[in-house]
């Protein structure tokens, strides 16, 4: 985010596919000539390049880089760091190049003049082969000598000191794990690094007197004999990794150490006291303190959002946009004084200066259509018409029935579902099967609620979904029909009808030989209907519940068929015996699931209590002043958590199964009611009473009253009242109102007994009526 971008003065793209990092660039008068600064860049691929940027050449794009380039050599080894210093016994600057296993010092010489500029070459002065992989280096007048010495940090934590062409000594840093930045503070003659313990450490005199590194084989082993252990003079806990340390020496009065951490910028005094710090709200990439005026220090800071920031102590003075994330920054004097030289990781070298060029962010164009006004006008008119019409129909709806805030609700039984169950206007929906089992009911409800100005009204109506929604007709297979487990036979007093005539959907499926039909439910399950030569219909299937829908449909359609033909005395009957055994199977299944739901509930609450208990213990332990071991309470906590989760999942699965079982139970119960009414020729009123008795609930709730106990209560009430043997008995039972609380029964034996009894009493001629005979 910046207003301006850094102005390009000179730039070059170095190589292709080369990589650069922090130490790969240095700036200085490398050839000791009278001309200004040169830029030395070394890459990880081993290329060493020297540039001398000039403004005049910068104008010609593309040519600039080639003409300003003084030297390009390939050094065979990766270049980790380049530094300029007085590494030889003379006042001339030499170039030190650090390779992973080698340190070389070169002098850079002018080889001659050719027409496009000077030609340079490098001459090796001396080199050291390193025993350990180097990672970075620093230089300075260690111990106050006149010339520069070098200190190299290796990847395994050894500081190696070189005084010109001789190796002085090596020391292992204590507690080393990963290398940090390294800097030399000439004012206190000490070395600074940020260790893996995330603290800034300063080493001074102990370095020289500590044990020689070579005498120790393993840096991790504690010292056995002799020598002093290397300990830092002072440490400062930063709590973060550092990217760079810089000890600028602009004047003798200023004494500060700058540390660029991942998240903060620190300025410290020489004794490790924080002078100031600044929290950075971005990820910095590199920095460079470059000048100091009146006790404040100016520094450049590059970050990962392509910004170049100039700070005066903690105050942001300037922000400029760069085209890349800089990994190294320097300030150099060419023809242009104080140019900022920046290098990106992929070899973009840029000399720039601060200017008021606006940042090159330009807003993308909105795909604004070229407006054709006439066309737009026409479209607008058309749309206006639509809108007006839309609002007019709205008004007519209101006017015709004087409604306000009308609302339409559609409800169907699970597993059926509708696409949208509430409407304000335009009721349009479709229903579909949303489960892996056939529904028990194809009926749905529509509720329309609205309020005429003051009074709210509700209108309800029922609708029936077609059977074809949940099943398709297939051709019956002989083999399956003979092996079907469940069979029901319905007798009539009329000759059989052509099944294809009353089931038009089946007519489309090709062959229905022998007047039989088969329905395959979408979730699976096959039901076959056979019409015999005499007046019988047989329904058979592998699953008891599946027969309900088909049986109901068949009875209904046959009724309609004969009513159309004008046959008045059409009678249908079921000769029995009632398939009570099959029916009880689904009752038992449902009950079993309810019992296990209860079990899961208990287990869950028990585990949750345990979880809370462990949490409480852990918390008291952590609140304790003195830290105590956890004694594996954490493992226990984790295990309990896993248990709770798996229990909850199992309970959820059980709930799904329970829902399915309840739908199946409803199907079977309705089938049973249908058969009972056919068997005994019950009147519609009686059938309604029976249905209300057997299906007291529309929704099953495992915790509260479930189907078993409600049904049991209703059935036993019937048995005691209208179906009881003696009228006296009826009177006494009616007197005692309100039985015990309904709860989950222990087993289903009582219920089964009562249902069987109910069937027997009905068979013996018991009549269902709500009016007490007494």
């Amino acid at each position, binding site marked *: 985010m910046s207003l301006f971008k850094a102005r390009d003065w000179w730039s070059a793209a170095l190589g292709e596919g080369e990589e650069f990092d922090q130490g790969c660039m240095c700036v200085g008068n490398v050839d000791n000539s009278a001309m200004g600064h040169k830029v030395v860049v070394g890459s990880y691929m081993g290329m060493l390049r020297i540039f001398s940027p000039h403004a005049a050449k910068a104008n010609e794009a593309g040519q600039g880089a080639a003409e300003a380039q003084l030297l390009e050599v390939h050094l065979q080894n990766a270049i980790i760091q380049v530094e300029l210093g007085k590494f030889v016994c003379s006042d001339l600057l030499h170039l030190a190049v650090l390779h992973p296993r080698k340190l070389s010092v070169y002098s850079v010489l002018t080889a001659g003049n050719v027409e496009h500029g000077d030609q340079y070459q490098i001459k090796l002065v001396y080199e050291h082969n390193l025993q350990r992989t180097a990672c970075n280096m620093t230089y300075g007048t260690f111990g106050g000598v006149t010339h520069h010495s070098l200190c190299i940090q290796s990847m395994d934590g050894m500081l190696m000191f070189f005084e010109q062409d001789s190796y002085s000594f090596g020391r292992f840093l204590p507690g080393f*794990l*990963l290398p940090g930045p390294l800097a030399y503070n000439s004012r206190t003659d000490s070395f600074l690094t940020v260790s893996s313990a995330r603290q800034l450490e300063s080493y001074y005199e102990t370095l020289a007197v500590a044990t020689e590194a070579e005498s120790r084989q393993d840096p991790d082993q504690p010292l056995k004999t002799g020598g002093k252990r290397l300990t830092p003079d002072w440490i400062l806990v930063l709590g973060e990794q550092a990217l760079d340390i810089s000890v600028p020496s602009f004047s003798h009065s200023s004494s500060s150490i700058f540390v660029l951490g991942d998240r903060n910028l620190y300025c410290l005094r020489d004794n490790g006291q924080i002078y100031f710090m600044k*929290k950075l709200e971005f990820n910095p990439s590199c920095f460079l303190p470059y000048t100091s005026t009146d006790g404040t220090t100016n520094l450049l800071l590059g970050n990962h959002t392509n910004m170049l920031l100039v700070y005066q102590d903690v105050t*942001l003075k300037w*922000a400029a946009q760069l085209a890349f994330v800089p990994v190294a920054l320097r300030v150099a004097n060419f023809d242009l004084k104080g140019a900022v030289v920046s290098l990106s990781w992929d070899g973009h070298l840029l000399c720039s200066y601060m200017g008021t060029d606006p940042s090159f962010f330009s807003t993308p164009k909105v795909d604004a259509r070229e407006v054709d006004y006439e066309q737009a006008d026409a479209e607008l008119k058309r749309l206006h018409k639509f809108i007006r019409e839309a609002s007019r129909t709205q008004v007519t709806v209101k006017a015709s029935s004087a409604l*306000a805030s009308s609302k339409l609700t559609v409800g169907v039984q699970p597993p059926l579902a509708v696409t949208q169950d509430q409407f304000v206007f335009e009721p349009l929906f479709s229903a579909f099967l949303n489960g892996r089992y056939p529904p028990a009911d194809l009926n749905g409800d529509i509720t329309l609620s609205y309020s005429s100005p003051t009074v709210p009204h509700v209108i309800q109506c029922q609708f029936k979904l077609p059977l074809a929604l949940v099943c398709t007709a297939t051709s019956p297979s002989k083999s399956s029909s003979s092996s079907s487990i469940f069979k029901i036979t319905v007798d009539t007093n009329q000759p059989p009808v052509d099944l294809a005539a009353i089931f038009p959907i089946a007519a489309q499926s090709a062959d229905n030989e022998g007047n039989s039909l088969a329905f395959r439910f979408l979730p699976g399950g096959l039901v076959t209907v056979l019409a015999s030569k005499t007046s019988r219909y047989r329904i058979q299937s592998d699953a008891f519940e599946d027969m309900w829908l088909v049986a109901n449909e068949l009875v209904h359609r046959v009724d309609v068929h004969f009513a159309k033909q004008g046959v008045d005395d059409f009678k249908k009957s079921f000769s029995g015996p009632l398939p009570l055994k099959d029916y009880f199977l689904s009752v038992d299944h449902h009950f079993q699931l309810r019992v296990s739901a209860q079990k899961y509930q208990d287990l869950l609450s028990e585990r949750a209590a345990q979880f809370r208990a462990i949490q409480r213990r852990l918390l008291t332990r*952590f609140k304790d002043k003195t830290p105590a071991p956890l004694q594996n309470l954490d493992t226990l*906590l984790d295990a309990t958590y896993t248990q709770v989760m798996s229990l909850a999942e199992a309970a959820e699965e059980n709930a799904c199964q329970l829902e399915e079982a309840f739908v199946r139970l409803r199907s079977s119960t309705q089938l049973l009611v249908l058969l009972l009414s056919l068997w005994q020729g019950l009147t519609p009123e009686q059938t309604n009473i029976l249905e209300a008795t057997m299906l007291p609930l529309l929704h099953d709730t495992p915790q509260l009253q479930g189907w078993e106990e409600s049904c049991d209560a209703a059935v036993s009430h019937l048995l005691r009242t209208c179906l009881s043997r003696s009228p006296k008995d009826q009177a006494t039972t009616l007197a005692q109102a309100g039985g015990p609380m309904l709860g989950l029964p222990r087993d289903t034996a009582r219920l089964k007994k009562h249902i069987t009894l109910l069937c027997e009493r009905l068979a013996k001629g018991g009549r269902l009526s709500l009016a007490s005979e007494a």
Partner: protein
Amino acid sequence: MEVTMDPLFLAWSYFRRRKLQQCSEICSKILQDSPYDQAAWSLKTQALTEMVYIDEIEVDQEGIAEMMLDENAIAQVARPGTSLRLPGTSHGGGPTPAVRPMTQSGRPITGFVRPNTQSGRPGTMEQAIKTPRTASTARPVTSASGRFIRLGTASMLTNPEGPFINLSRLNMSRYSQKPNLSRTLFEYILHHENDVKNFFFHLQALDLAALATEQAQFKDWWWKVQLGKCYYRLGLYREAEKQFRSALSHQEMVDTYLYLAKLYQRLDQPITALNLFKHGLDHFPGEVTLLTGIARIHEEMNNMASATEYYKEVLKQDNTHVEAIACIGSNHFYSDQPEIALRFYRRLLQMGVYNCQLYNNLGLCCFYAQQYDMTLSSFERALALVANDEEQADVWYNIGQVALGIGDLTLAYQCFKLTLAFSNDHAEAYNNLAVLELRKGRVEQSKAFLQTAATLSPHMYEPHYNLSILSEKIGDLQSSYMAAQKSEDAFPEHVDTQQVLVQLRQHFAAL
């Protein structure tokens, strides 16, 4: 030209350049060859942490559970000006709700959306569920979803074979004795494994921190801050405060001040937090984060003048601070200086902020500054940049406002309808639609809209007031009186409401 390099060095260099994925890959390779390479292990841990690192100071969302099940009992009726819960008392001469809209908890709308912009504790569960918790959604965040959202979850970044570090197998006391590993490991646990589900990991982090603090003879400020962070996450605020205080006495650090102030804000002690910030500023003069903290508290306390003062102070230190520019801009806008607000927003635009909200603001500023040519093109751009339905609704609402301003009622009506199509709980749009419906003479429809608006956001006084006027006109004095009372609750200084109330009382007295 191929040059061989030490893989560990390369990984280390990648890490420094924040090429974290490459770094982690190289480390994985090293670890395959030598599984006990501590340096590579540590580097990979750091890389994985950096990938998901977020500064915890900026992230603070109270889940609904934390809010309602808060055990830290605090006086329910705080004195005015000492609590963030009762912001109603504006003593800084801030704008009234007639000029500047309020959030549900009664704060003026701020110019910069922060994670906890709309904080403030609701009084009841019902209100808690209704109050928008995050800036963008209207639903309350549960602890599990709201906290520490970031791009790409940690589990996506680690290798598919399972977590990089199996924390349950670590021997914490052994690691706590290794200072060069323990901090890295701790940050990994805290940031990479953080998940509210993983309460367990917090415990592990806490365990490690406690052991390490002991190891450092209770002298290491960093470990104390980390202990405090763990306590904070576990909701043990007083313990956290103790640790932060102790850390500050060892070493003054900006972060510690920020954590402590955040804690005090959570404990609803804004004055203490302010003093702490000011104390921090004595040590770190000109620290932007501290200044911003002060400004935010002033803004939440409805003290706009001081807030703007501090935002200006922020800009003196860092003139690219987006939050400060945006907040000053919105303050100018709501104090009837759209031209000046326009300059601030334009500045943001020049700095490269490019989003729907900015263009939305620009469009409004242009309109009120009478630069009509820019208004519609700004909104056009805003519409092109919308990221979600809420933003779209806001843009259309503003276009509707502009349409009202130029008197194109049909356009305004359609704009508000569009607003509702995109966000059906936009109470302001309901309110404005109601007024338009009333102008068309559809009293019933208008009343319905007003009632909807009033239920959607009871903190707004406009629907109540409008309802009161409307009820009075159709002769329903009782409803009118009740609505007027509600309006008075929402905005006690509203003169028109008071006039209505006086009139009604006279009526009732006369009867």
